[in-house]
């Protein structure tokens, strides 16, 4: 019998249970934060939720974020982490422009175009050079950030709103990376290319002003 089997404290089962306890504490903390009474009049939770929902509520934001993750995953290292890292950092630049009232033309067109371009890149399985892929994501990140930033000053808690939309955006990237892992399964590459085509089609539909939607 080996050492691990002799000492139950080192067994995988025990370690797994040990890991769960800190996680339970984390869950408790999350419950605590729901009250969010320390700062503005119940505005921290409201601000966070408002910011968190902003990228999820708009199909253009949602598709573009997921597409960034899928494209990064299909391109492999280092872009699998470089794209999701670059996007929020450049999104902040757009956000600051939006907050400070710097004009940026064609924001909605730029956001819709990001869905089309990223969708086409996935559909065409485009192996873009690192610098080109980063530049594309950076430019589109500014447009998305601008849209979030223009809504930020009106919220009750700008800090919580900012944290909400950054985390939500990042989670959508991670969801996209998870989808992109399909490339490892049989016919996964075709599935991903099809999903890219669907994203690009949705982007074209958004770009055309969503005909058929009241």
């Amino acid at each position, binding site marked *: 019998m080996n050492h691990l089997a002799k000492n139950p404290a080192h067994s995988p089962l025990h370690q797994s249970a040990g890991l769960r306890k800190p996680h339970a504490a984390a869950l408790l903390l999350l419950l*605590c934060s729901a009250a969010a009474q320390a700062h503005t009049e119940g505005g921290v939770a409201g601000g966070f939720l408002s910011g968190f929902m902003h990228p999820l509520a708009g199909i253009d934001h949602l598709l573009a974020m997921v597409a960034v993750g899928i494209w990064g995953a299909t391109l492999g290292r280092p872009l699998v982490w470089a794209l999701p890292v670059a996007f929020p950092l450049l999104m902040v630049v757009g956000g600051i422009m939006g907050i400070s009232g710097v004009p940026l033309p064609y924001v909605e067109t730029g956001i819709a175009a990001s869905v089309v371009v990223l969708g086409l890149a996935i559909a065409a399985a485009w192996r873009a050079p690192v610098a080109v892929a980063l530049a594309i994501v950076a430019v589109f990140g500014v447009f998305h950030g601008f849209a979030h930033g223009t809504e930020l000053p009106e919220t009750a808690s700008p800090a919580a709103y900012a944290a909400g939309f950054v985390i939500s955006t990042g989670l959508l990237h991670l969801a996209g990376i998870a989808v992109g892992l399909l490339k490892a399964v049989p016919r996964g590459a075709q599935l991903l290319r099809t999903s890219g085509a669907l994203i690009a089609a949705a982007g074209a539909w958004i770009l055309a002003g969503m005909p058929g939607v009241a």
Partner: protein
Amino acid sequence: MWPKPRLAASALAALALGGCGSAWAHGIAGATASIWTAPHHLLTSPLSLAALIGLALVLFGIREPASFIAAALAGAAATLATALLPQLPGVLAPAGVVVIGLAAVAAWKPSTGFAFVLAVLAGLAAGSAAELEQARWQELAGIGITVLVAAFWLLASAENLSHSARLQPVLPLARRVLGSWITAIGLLLGALAVLGRHA
């Protein structure tokens, strides 16, 4: 898992549970002198949480006793930041968070000395971002203990995660991505502070 992180996790859970009951942050009849005021402020401040989570990302895998010393330094720095809050510039907390976030993005593995410097920076950022209006002994003790326990718990959890064989392929990626979120939040709130909006 070591008993110490488990104890720290339980202490933190008790802290959170104790604070869930009612709004003690400002009290029904104005600001009350309670040791729980500080945890409320700290745990509902996105920038404070970002500083402590960012610290755990940078010092990922740091072992005891260095992790405890780092947490203690962060706690002491947070106490100091709370005591000196009126004298501190508004951009201190976001700037500290940006430095910590960028260190995580760069996957920097600091020496023990730099780890302690980063812990002090995280503590200063967390303490000043908590924005406690008064610096009585209750608030000072509360912020110091909360930052110590929270930082130690995060560092201990990160050390546990670093041993997980299943997570090894994704951990470096996750550290960089989470670091970019921390940096983005810090940059945005720094801009808000510079523009004169309440963050």
